[in-house]
């Protein structure tokens, strides 16, 4: 029987799962399974994640959350055989990059069209303005109301450190050191390939089911699979130029095009599309 690593994580776990699946050195030797912690339901534990599902699990990569363990996490832990090794790792998130991610009344009736809300674009939505005037008004309001993003960064760092404190693998220092130079986030919770590579290599290194002699080769394979990969970019929300300036984001390119499903738009194009709640193609 092939042994498996069970990944208990949010959608970032899917990146670990897919990358792990394509590692040549582990093909046929070690498989990967994922329980999406943000989607798992009470019934799933008996229907999808019962004893058969757990039978070949030798290691759990458990992504930590703040606060006391949820009912699902307790359920997971209760179902794991005692011999299973657990490696705990933190989630990645960045709220400071999108300070206007607030509320949009349109999400109440159409929650999936533009799920990464922008409250200022939402406020302008009902106004019947031509493109230039709409974007100009958006820039005026957001510049005037731009919150203290450095303070928000400090709050993010505090959250990263709190997650680190619960985890075997630490990421706060690495994120803080790199987020200005390398694009790490497509949205507040969706990652480019760099954080996935960073955490995956450490997870592999700490996994006892992997032979120590394989680690160097596996690290090279992770780099090979992810060096040209764009990560979770199917919804990439543009960063506001004033945020980029205030946070001194050196990777920021004002003319960058951001993928939104089947499209690639500039910041301006995205804001106009978002404000107009425009349909898009996959």
């Amino acid at each position, binding site marked *: 029987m092939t042994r498996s690593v069970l990944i208990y994580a949010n959608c970032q776990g899917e990146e670990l799962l897919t990358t792990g699946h394509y590692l040549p050195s582990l093909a046929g030797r070690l498989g990967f399974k994922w329980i999406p912690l943000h989607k798992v339901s009470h019934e799933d534990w008996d229907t999808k994640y019962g004893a058969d599902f757990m039978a070949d699990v030798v290691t759990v990569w458990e992504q930590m959350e703040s606060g006391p363990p949820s009912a699902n996490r307790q359920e997971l832990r209760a179902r794991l055989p005692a011999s299973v090794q657990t490696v705990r790792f933190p989630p990645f998130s960045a709220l400071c990059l999108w300070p206007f*991610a607030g509320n*949009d009344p349109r999400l109440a009736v159409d929650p999936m069209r533009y799920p990464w809300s922008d409250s200022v674009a939402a406020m302008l939505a009902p106004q019947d303005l031509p493109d230039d005037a709409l974007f100009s008004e958006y820039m005026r309001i957001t510049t005037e109301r731009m919150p203290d993003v450095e303070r928000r960064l400090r709050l993010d760092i505090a959250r990263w450190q709190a997650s680190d404190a619960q985890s075997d693998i630490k990421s706060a220092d690495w994120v803080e050191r790199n987020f200005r130079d390398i694009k790490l986030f497509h949205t507040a919770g969706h990652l480019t390939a760099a954080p996935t590579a960073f955490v995956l290599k450490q997870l592999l290194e700490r996994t006892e089911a992997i032979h120590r002699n394989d680690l160097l080769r596996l690290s090279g394979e992770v780099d090979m699979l*992810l060096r040209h990969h764009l990560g979770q970019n199917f919804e990439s929300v543009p960063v506001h130029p004033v945020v980029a300036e205030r946070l001194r984001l050196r990777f920021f390119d004002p003319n960058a095009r951001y993928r939104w499903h089947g499209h690639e738009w500039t910041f301006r194009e995205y804001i106009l599309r978002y404000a107009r709640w425009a349909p898009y193609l996959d």
Partner: protein
Amino acid sequence: MPDRLEAAFVFGSLGNLTGALGDGWSEEDNYAWALGDESRLILPLPGDEGTYTLRFTVHPLVHPGVRESQRLRIATGETELGSFDLPQRATIEVPLPIGLTRHRHRIDLILTHPDAVRPRDFKESPDSRWLTVCFHSGGLVRTSAGFDGETDGEAADVLHAVIAGHNVARQIASVMSKLSLLEDRITFHYVGMGGTVEATVQTLPPWVLRSAQVYWEQSDVGSPDVAAALRGMLPDDCEVRRMPSPHMTALWPLQGTDPRLVREPGRYDIGRYPFTDRVGASLANMMLPDDVMILAYESMAEKEVPNLDAYLEADVDAWRRLDAANDVQVADFIVDNFRRQRLFCAPPHATPALLRHMIDQLVATPAIEAAADPTALRREIDFVMAGWVGCREELPVHPHVARHFDLSWWQPDMHYRWFGNEWTFEQYALDYIRWNPWRP
């Protein structure tokens, strides 16, 4: 006519309601708590004769054993507008009687919420505010019953349009189904033609095919039996248009055999690099550093590249044959434009620019033109397709080929999309030669 958002309300200090909040609120960046027993809210109205509903997205402060839900009553003056018991986050709707909105420019709301609790009383928190319901956003929605905008009379009957085929048909169907000008007039249905007659026919309700007014078929896809069966079910007055599946080989003339290309089920179902390169294959066993390998590849490729003009001539002949067999014409357009516009991203994959040309011809039919003004429709098609990159399987073009054809859209350092990856010609060539794994 769908409901229309007349005004968007965003609570919190970053929102647009700070001036509208009366007594009984505590604002934070992105939301506002209704405090104590009662809060006041003054909202603008358009002052016309429309019928309106207020919509709020809220979440109650609840805690097991302390407070299971929060009650909320919304009134104006003596008139109760709505009453709710909120155990969890919800979007609530408050229809406004027309007598309260007609020719009025504001409405004063009184929010009553008798179940206030203090966070510090049930968890470790210094928060001593008496909190009830947290307001996130809201909207003033003009409801369809009172909307007398653009329609004149009864809604037109919805027609059915069937688009059958494979990639080209699927992509065209996805564009057509996003057009607001047609959404109440024509429903577009895509049918994949890769399966059996029975399986294909069953993907649609039988009455859709029997009543279809428009049928667009991608030719040379699937079994002729499937195409014949679908056509046989159409009504006599259905407008039928055939469109081609154009290919281009002249931009990728080094395709050939590569013994490494085999199915790898579960990882690369049609093979790791399905578009082969015979020069790359011939270098597969060479152990060379990157820069030397690329030099070797490029020098060999320049010698191996066949007569590109002959390849183009063969492509043109094939496109002309497609034109003769289809209603949608592509040959002249491709010949005139492929140097200045990217029309193919891989031999079998048309880009949005070529698809746009095909759509332009497809919509020039009586049923479509009767449903929407052709000029406005084309403008909306351009809007929907703006920034669309289409298929993310882009096969890099060899520099020698690009220079030979003087491709103005090509640049030596351009990046090509390959599923979840982006790479340059050189990066792709090296990975191909070494048959490196990639992940989608």
